């Protein structure tokens, strides 16, 4: 049996282990309806398609009616709508998101192929911006309407107001084109034929600007939420009590207030993971980064609907799983062992 170790290192008792497992099971049970909902939404979307899907597959080529009806039967389009829905649900729940009209590959394999390349862009900004954002938020909350607070608020308002792809364009124009500090576009230098460490360094060099663009928006968000949450927590009785015990401001801020203030921050970051991913899709377009964004933009261009809806389902499922209070459970023991 795997041992479950809690955060402060003590081993959890049998009962606690069971309740933890029950907690996770319950959370998964809660996220299933959400995922079902997303799949139904995707199904509805596909059926909003003007005309018939077969028209898109065959394109302008003239085909015999027999072929068309065969194709319709093959795709299950001749069955009643509710049967199609059940079939679609059953397939999607098993991870079958359909086949691309264009490349004939499974949508899932196309997505999984590109996913790591996109996550590379998303992960670093997520970690760094969250850390800096929490720090700035805490700093701003210390003295409301002080110079630091106003500056932090201004930065976060501006950060909220800049479309991430435009920020990417500006970074590209200034830092890559004018100053030549970074490569202009792409994932790596294909002509240099790099290997080993040099290759990784090259990829990182290419990833800096897109990450900065994504991180800026994330930073604005985290700063704002942390500030608001800290201000609320700092006015509570137990903080006053801690202060009257004579604890130092640093202890109060970081040990007493921040722990609790992080809860809403984590939830918002969880909900906004989807926002970050969509940001990545836009930024990828600017930097010609071959991730999910490119896949999606190509799919839009070629009317490759299974790829579009497949990404919708895939990304929503990721976010749903992240959101469904696992974030809460990890941070707040009260929720975990109810």
């Amino acid at each position, binding site marked *: 049996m795997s041992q479950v170790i809690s955060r402060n290192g003590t081993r959890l008792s049998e009962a606690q282990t069971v309740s933890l497992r029950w907690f996770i099971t319950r959370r998964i049970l809660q996220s299933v309806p*959400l995922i079902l909902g997303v799949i139904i939404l995707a199904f509805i979307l596909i059926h909003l398609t003007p005309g018939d899907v077969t028209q898109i597959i065959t394109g302008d080529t003239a085909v015999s009616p027999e072929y068309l009806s065969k194709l319709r039967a093959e795709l299950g389009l001749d069955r009643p709508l509710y049967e199609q829905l059940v079939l679609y649900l059953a397939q999607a729940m098993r991870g079958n998101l359909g086949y691309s009209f264009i490349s004939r590959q499974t949508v899932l394999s196309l997505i999984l192929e590109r996913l790591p390349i996109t996550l590379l862009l998303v992960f670093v900004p997520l970690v760094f911006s969250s850390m800096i954002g929490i720090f700035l938020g805490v700093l701003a909350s210390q003295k409301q309407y002080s110079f630091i607070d106003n500056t932090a608020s201004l930065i976060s308002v501006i950060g909220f107001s800049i479309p991430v792809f435009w920020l990417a364009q500006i970074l590209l124009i200034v830092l890559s084109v004018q100053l030549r500090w970074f490569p202009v576009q792409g994932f790596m230098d294909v002509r240099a034929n790099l290997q080993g460490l040099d290759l990784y360094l090259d990829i990182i060099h290419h990833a800096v600007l897109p990450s900065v663009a994504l991180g800026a928006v994330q930073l604005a968000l985290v700063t704002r939420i942390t500030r608001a949450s800290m201000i609320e927590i700092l006015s509570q009785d137990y903080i006053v009590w801690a202060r009257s015990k004579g604890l130092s401001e640093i202890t109060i801020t970081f040990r007493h207030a921040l722990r609790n203030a992080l809860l809403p921050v984590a939830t918002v970051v969880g909900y906004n993971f989807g926002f970050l991913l969509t940001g990545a899709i836009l930024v990828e377009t*600017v930097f010609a980064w071959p991730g999910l964004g490119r896949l999606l933009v190509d799919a*839009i261009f070629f009317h490759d609907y299974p790829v579009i809806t497949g990404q919708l389902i895939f990304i929503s499922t990721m976010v749903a799983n992240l959101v469904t209070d696992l974030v809460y459970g990890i941070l707040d023991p009260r929720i975990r062992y109810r």
Partner: protein
Amino acid sequence: MISTKRALAQRRTLIKNVKDFWHVYKKNRAAFGGLALMVFVLSLAGFAPFLTPYEPRRMVAIPFIAPVWSHPMGTDNLGRDMFTEVLYGARTSLMVSFLAAFTSAIVGVLLGAISGFYGGYIDEIFMRITELFQVVPRLILALATVAIVGPSVWNLIWVIGLTSWPTTARLLRVEFLSLRERPFVEAVKGLGAGDIQVAFREILPNATYCIIVNVSFEVARAIITESSLTFLGLGDANIPSLGILLQNAQPYLQTAWWMSVFPGTLIVLAVLSLNLVGDGLNEALSPKLRER
């Protein structure tokens, strides 16, 4: 006679409220600046035909002229005057965003009000639906929908509207949940008012501030969503919008910086002004914050 007296009294309180509001609002410098900025951006878009001699989407000069006096924002790859394109683009973007935010406000208010007013299993169902729409990244949902129904200005409006109501619905629900327990609601109910009357004539006016504040944020977000969608190629290329201009700038980033800088700046100004106004409204209208 009595009704006119009542109307007069109502008008007087309204005027007083507006004055009170303005008194608090103008003290907030950021909010005041935001309002001025908003007026500026709106007039740029509104008076576009008077501000520029050209028509949008027309070739008026040679391509790729860097900003000069006669073309203050340069010209694009087809020799179109960027200043004209930006003004008319802002028009489209702002119109789409305002209408989309309006749509989302109606949907959000209805769902939130019903949810909070009735509670119970209706609330449960509505909240699950809201959760669904919050978990699905709205841009990707909007993108998939527009990609399927086809890019047109009207499609953009309803798609953005129908993908961005959850925040409003959640806020309204909470307001309704707390307001419906108040004594005045009991009183009106006791007088025999029907559900619709209680919900929309008695409770809703008390939640107006939260709708107004939220709408200004929603317009700001809609501008970003609209420009993102059109940037990815889901716009009507015959009508300039700020996102379409940025999409058009993308291949020429290395040579024609002005094609990206100006449309983007206008987006930032518009969104920033609305966010600042939203913050200001929140501070001036929210009963909780006002007591400070």
